[in-house]
C-alpha cells in the first residue's frame, strides 16, 4: 500500500487481492443509481442486505415467465419443471456448504426462521435432545436478536437456564470461563460465526470441541459468513448451520437451515401443513422424511431458484477470491477509519479474524446524524443498534454507524466514506 493519506482517491489501486470490480459492478443495475444532486450511490450496507446481480433477477423473471407452478404436486409439465428447479436449488445449496446429503438442506424464509425452527425442535423433542427445566442453553453477548430471543422464549417456556459468553474490550468472545458456561447440563450452544455489528470472526473450533466434550448440540448462525467466505458445514463440525439468502445476492424470503441427517430424522416437526406429511387421517398423521418434514406449506419457490442463481454467481467468482477481496478492502478501511479524529471502532481494530462489517462511533455525534449527512452524499450506511443491542450496552453506547462491504465494494468507496466522515465532523463541529 502507498503511504500517502493526505487526500482521497489515490491509494486503493495498490491493494492486492482485489476482484475486477469494474466488471462485477456492471452486473448490478442498482449500483448505477445516482442520488440527490448527482451523487453516485455508494452502497455500504451489505451486512443488512446485499444488492442483486442481473443473473439473479433474470432467473426470477424466467421462473415466473416460463415455469411457475406449485411444487411436488402436479403431474403437468410446469409442475415438474418447477419442482426440478426448486430441488435443483437445494442441490446447489448442498454443494455450496459441502453438505454430505442434499436432504440435510431445509429451506426457510430467512435465518431467523431457521434459528427459531431449531429452538422449537429442541423444545418439543424427546430425550436426549429435549430442552427442559434441567437443561442449559449457551449463546453469546454478540448475537443478533434472532439468536437471542428464540432462546429466551424457549427458556421461559421450559425453565431451562440461558447462559452466554461475554465480550472482551477488543470485541472478541471472552472464552476464559468456557468451562463454567458449557457443562454437562448444556443441551445446545448457539453462536454466530461472524458478528453482524462488529465483524468479529469467532473461534468455532474451540467452542465446538468443548460442546462435543459434554454432548451438547451446536448451532452456528452463518448469516454474515455464507455471503463472504467458504462455508463448509463438515469442517465446522456443527450440528446445525443457519443462514439467509438476501445477504448473499439472492432475493428476500429464502433462508436455509442445514442439519445433520440423523438429527433431522429424530427431531419433531415444528410447523404442520401440506408437504410435510406422509399420511393424514382425522386422528393423526405421519410425516415425510427430512427436509420436507420441516417445510410445511407451499415454499418460497422463486426465491429458492433465485438463491440457486446467486450461488452460481458467487461460485463462478469463487468464495476464496471474494474473501480475499473483502479482506483487502477491510484492512484498508480499518486503517483509514482510524485516521479520522475522534473515531472509535467498536470491535476488532485490525483486519485479522474479522469480516467486512465495521461499526464505529464518531465523537459524540449520534449515528443517526452521521448516517443522515452521509446519505446526503450518496453514501448508504446502517445506523442504530443493528439488532444486537446487548453489544451496544456492553460498550456503553446507544448505537453505532456501520459500514459493510461486499464483492463489488471498491477502495474508492472507502475513500468516499472517509471524506464523508470528515464532512460530518465539519457539519456538527
Amino acid at each position, binding site marked *: 500500500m502507498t503511504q500517502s493519506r493526505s487526500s482521497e482517491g489515490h491509494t486503493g489501486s495498490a491493494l492486492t487481492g482485489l476482484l475486477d470490480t469494474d466488471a462485477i459492478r456492471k452486473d448490478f443495475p442498482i449500483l448505477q443509481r445516482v442520488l440527490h*444532486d448527482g451523487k453516485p450511490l455508494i452502497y455500504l450496507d451489505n451486512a443488512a442486505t446485499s444488492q442483486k446481480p442481473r443473473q439473479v433477477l433474470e432467473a426470477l423473471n424466467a421462473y415466473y415467465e416460463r415455469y411457475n407452478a406449485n411444487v411436488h404436486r402436479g403431474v403437468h409439465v410446469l409442475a415438474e419443471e418447477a419442482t426440478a428447479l426448486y430441488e435443483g436449488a437445494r442441490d446447489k445449496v448442498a454443494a455450496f456448504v459441502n453438505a454430505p446429503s442434499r436432504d440435510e438442506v431445509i429451506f426457510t424464509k430467512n435465518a431467523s426462521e431457521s434459528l427459531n425452527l431449531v429452538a422449537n425442535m429442541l423444545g418439543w423433542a424427546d430425550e436426549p435432545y429435549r430442552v427442559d427445566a434441567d437443561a442449559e442453553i449457551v449463546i453469546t453477548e454478540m448475537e443478533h436478536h434472532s439468536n437471542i430471543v428464540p432462546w429466551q422464549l424457549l427458556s421461559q417456556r421450559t425453565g431451562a437456564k440461558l447462559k452466554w459468553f461475554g465480550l472482551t474490550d477488543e470485541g472478541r468472545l471472552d472464552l476464559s470461563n468456557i468451562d463454567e458456561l458449557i457443562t454437562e447440563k448444556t443441551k445446545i450452544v448457539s453462536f454466530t460465526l461472524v458478528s453482524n455489528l462488529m465483524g468479529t470472526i469467532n473461534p468455532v473450533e474451540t467452542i465446538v470441541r468443548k460442546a462435543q466434550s459434554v454432548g451438547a448440540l451446536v448451532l452456528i448462525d452463518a448469516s454474515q459468513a455464507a455471503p463472504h467466505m467458504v462455508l463448509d458445514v463438515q469442517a465446522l463440525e456443527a450440528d446445525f448451520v443457519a443462514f439467509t439468502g438476501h445477504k448473499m445476492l439472492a432475493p428476500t424470503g429464502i433462508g436455509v437451515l442445514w442439519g445433520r441427517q440423523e438429527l433431522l430424522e429424530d427431531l419433531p416437526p415444528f410447523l404442520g401443513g401440506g408437504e410435510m406429511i406422509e399420511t393424514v387421517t382425522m386422528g393423526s398423521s405421519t410425516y415425510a422424511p427430512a427436509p420436507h418434514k420441516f417445510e410445511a406449506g407451499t415454499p418460497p419457490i422463486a426465491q429458492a431458484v433465485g438463491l440457486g442463481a446467486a450461488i452460481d454467481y458467487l461460485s463462478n467468482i469463487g468464495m476464496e477470491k471474494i474473501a480475499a477481496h473483502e479482506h483487502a478492502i477491510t484492512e484498508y478501511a480499518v486503517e483509514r477509519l482510524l485516521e479520522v479524529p475522534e473515531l472509535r471502532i467498536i470491535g476488532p481494530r485490525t483486519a485479522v479474524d474479522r469480516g467486512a462489517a465495521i461499526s464505529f462511533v464518531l465523537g459524540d455525534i449520534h449515528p443517526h*446524524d452521521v448516517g443522515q449527512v452521509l446519505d*446526503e452524499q450518496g453514501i448508504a450506511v446502517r445506523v*442504530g443498534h443493528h439488532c444486537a*443491542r446487548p453489544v451496544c450496552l456492553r460498550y456503553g453506547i446507544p448505537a453505532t454507524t456501520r459500514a459493510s462491504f461486499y464483492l463489488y465494494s471498491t477502495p474508492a468507496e472507502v475513500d468516499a466514506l472517509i471524506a464523508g466522515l470528515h464532512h460530518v465532523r465539519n457539519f456538527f463541529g
Partner: protein
Amino acid sequence: MKLDSMYQEIILDHYRNPHGKGLRDGDAEVHHVNPTCGDEITLRVRLDGAVVADVSYESQGCSISQASASVLNDLVVGKTVGEGQVIQEAFLELMQSKGQGEGDEEVLEDAVAFAGVSKYPARVKCALLSWMAWKDATAKALAEQPAIND
C-alpha cells in the same frame, strides 16, 4: 442543500445547548424509546394546578430528538395543560405533513424549524419522541389530580 432544511441553525443550537435538560421533581414520569434507533427519553412533568410547572428529562439520541426535547421544554413550561396540548397537536400535525406544512409560528415559535424534518420519514419519530412522552406523562399527572379543570 437539502440537508440544511432539516438541520436548521435553531435546531443545532438547541442540540448543542439543550434547555431544561436533567431530571427534577415531577408528578409523573415516563420512559419512551425509539426501538429502531435506540433513542431514549425519561421525562417528568410537574403540574401546579392547571399549569405545567416543569418538564424535566434525561435523554440520549440524535440531534433532532435532543433539540426537539429542548424546544418542548421552552414551549410548554409555564403554559396551561390545555395550551400545551394545542401546541403538541400543532407540532404533531407539522411532523405528519410530509414536507408540506410550514407551521404556525404564533403557536410553535422555534418548533417551526422542524418543518424540514417532516420530509424524512425515518426522522419524524425522532422529533416526536419527547412530545409523545410529554403527552403521556401529562395524562398520567392529570389522572392523579382528577379535580384539575383547565
